[in-house]
C-alpha cells in the first residue's frame, strides 16, 4: 500500500515539475467548452439539455490528452525502466500509476467544472456531491484502461493517434453512464432512475481496474 502511494507520489511530482502538461490540458478543456458553446444554436437547444454531453465529452477528450502526455513525459525520463529493475510488485506499480493519472485528470476536471458552470450558465450546487461522485467513478474507468494503453502506445511512433483509437471504444460505457447520471442529477430526478447507470459505472470500474492490474505485468515485463 505504501508502495502504491510512493509510486503515485513520484509520478505526481514528475507531472508537477513539468507544469506544461497540466496547463495545456486545462487550456484545452477550456477551449473545447468555448467551441461547444459557439457550435450550438442557442434557440434550438437549451443549455441544460446539452450540458451533460458537453461536459463529459470535454472531460473525455481532456483525459485522453492528459494521459498521453503523462506517459510521454515518463518515456522522456526513462523513469519506468529504473523502477522495473527493482523488485517492485507490478500490481503496486500499476495502482500507483493509476492514482497519479487519476490525480492528474481529476485536477483538470476540477478546474474545468467551474468553467463549465460559468460558460453554460448551469447551476451545479444542488447536485454537486452527485456530480463529483459520478466524476470520480467515470474517471476511474477512463484512467484504468487509459494507463494500460498509454503504457503500450508510448512505445510506438504515433502514440498520439494510436491512444485515442484504442481507448475511445473503452471510454464509451463510462461516458454513457456519466452523461445519463449527470443529466438526471441536473434535472433533480429521483435516485431510482439513476441506479442502473451508477451500477454500470461501478461495475465497469471494478472489472477493469482488476483486469488492468492483472495484465499490467504483460505490458511492462519482457
Amino acid at each position, binding site marked *: 500500500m505504501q508502495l502504491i502511494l510512493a509510486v503515485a507520489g513520484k509520478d505526481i511530482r514528475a507531472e508537477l515539475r513539468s507544469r506544461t502538461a497540466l496547463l495545456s490540458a486545462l487550456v484545452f478543456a477550456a477551449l473545447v467548452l468555448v467551441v461547444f458553446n459557439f457550435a450550438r444554436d442557442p434557440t434550438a437547444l437549451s443549455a441544460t439539455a446539452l450540458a451533460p454531453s458537453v461536459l463529459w465529452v470535454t472531460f473525455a477528450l481532456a483525459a485522453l490528452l492528459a494521459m498521453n502526455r503523462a506517459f510521454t513525459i515518463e518515456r522522456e525520463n526513462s523513469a519506468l525502466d529504473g523502477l522495473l529493475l527493482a523488485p517492485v510488485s507490478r500490481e503496486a506499480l500499476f495502482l500507483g500509476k493509476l492514482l497519479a493519472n487519476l490525480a492528474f485528470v481529476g485536477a483538470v476536471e476540477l478546474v474545468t467544472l467551474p468553467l463549465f458552470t460559468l460558460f453554460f450558465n448551469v447551476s451545479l450546487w444542488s447536485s454537486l456531491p452527485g456530480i463529483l461522485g459520478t466524476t470520480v467513478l467515470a474517471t476511474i474507468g477512463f484512467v484504468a*484502461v487509459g494507463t*494500460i*494503453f498509454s503504457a*503500450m*502506445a508510448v*512505445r*510506438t*511512433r*504515433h502514440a498520439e493517434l*494510436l491512444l485515442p*483509437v*484504442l481507448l*475511445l*471504444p*473503452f471510454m*464509451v*460505457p463510462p461516458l*454513457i*453512464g456519466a452523461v*445519463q447520471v449527470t443529466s438526471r442529477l441536473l434535472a433533480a430526478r429521483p435516485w431510482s*432512475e439513476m441506479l*442502473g*447507470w451508477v451500477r*454500470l459505472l461501478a*461495475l*465497469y470500474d471494478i*472489472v*477493469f481496474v482488476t*483486469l*488492468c492490474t492483472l*495484465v499490467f505485468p*504483460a*505490458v511492462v515485463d*519482457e
Partner: protein
Amino acid sequence: MEPIDGKADRIIRRGLRLSAAAFVGLLLVYVLALGYTPVEARQGVAQKIFYLHVPAAWSALLAFSLVGVTGALYLWLQDPRLDRFAAASAEVGVAFSAVMLTTGPIWARPIWGTWWTWDARLTLTLFLFFLFVGYLALRAALHDPAERARFSAVVGILGLLLVPFIHLSVYLFRTLHPQPIVLKPSAPSLPPEMLRTLLVSTLVFTLLYAGFVTARYGLALADERRELEEGSDVG
C-alpha cells in the same frame, strides 16, 4: 528451409480450398434465401437480408472472441502460433464486420426508413469494428514480435470484456428510451424454412471464417519464414 515453407504453403492452400468450398455453400444459401424461404408479409423481400446479416454478425463475434481467447492463452502459454492465429482472426473479423455494417443499414432503410439505428446488434458490431481496427493498428505500429504479441493479447482480452458492457449500456439505454424494436425477426414464430436457411447460412459463414483464418494464418507463417530467411541471407 524448403519443408517449412512448404508447410506454410500447404496451410494457405488448405484455407483457400476450404473457403472456396464455403463459397459454394454461400451460393446454396443465396438460392435458399431467394427461392426456398417465404416472403415475409410485413417486411417484404428485403427481410431476406436477414440470412446474411445475422450469420455475418455471428462470424464477426466468433472472430473477436477467438482473438481475445487466443490472446489470453498466449499470455499463459507463450506459444507464437496463438498470436499468429489471433492476428489472422482479427483481419478476418474486419471483413465480416464490414458485411454486417453494410447489410445492416441496407436492411434498416427500407424497413424503418432510417439508415442507422442504435440497436444492440448494430452498435455492438460497430464497436467490434473499431476494436478490430485498433487492434490491427497497434500491431502495425509494433515491430518486436514478442512485444507485439503481448500487447495485442492485452488489447484482445480487454476488448473481449468490453463487449458485455457495450451490450449492457445499449440495453439500459433502450429500456429507458424505448425505441421501436428493430431488425428483429418474429423470433418465436419463425417458419421452419426461415430457420433452416438461417442455420445453413450460419454454418456456411462459420466455414468461411475457418477457411479465411486458415489461409491468413498460413500467409502470416510464410511471411515470418521469409523474413527469417532474408535475415539469414544478409548475415
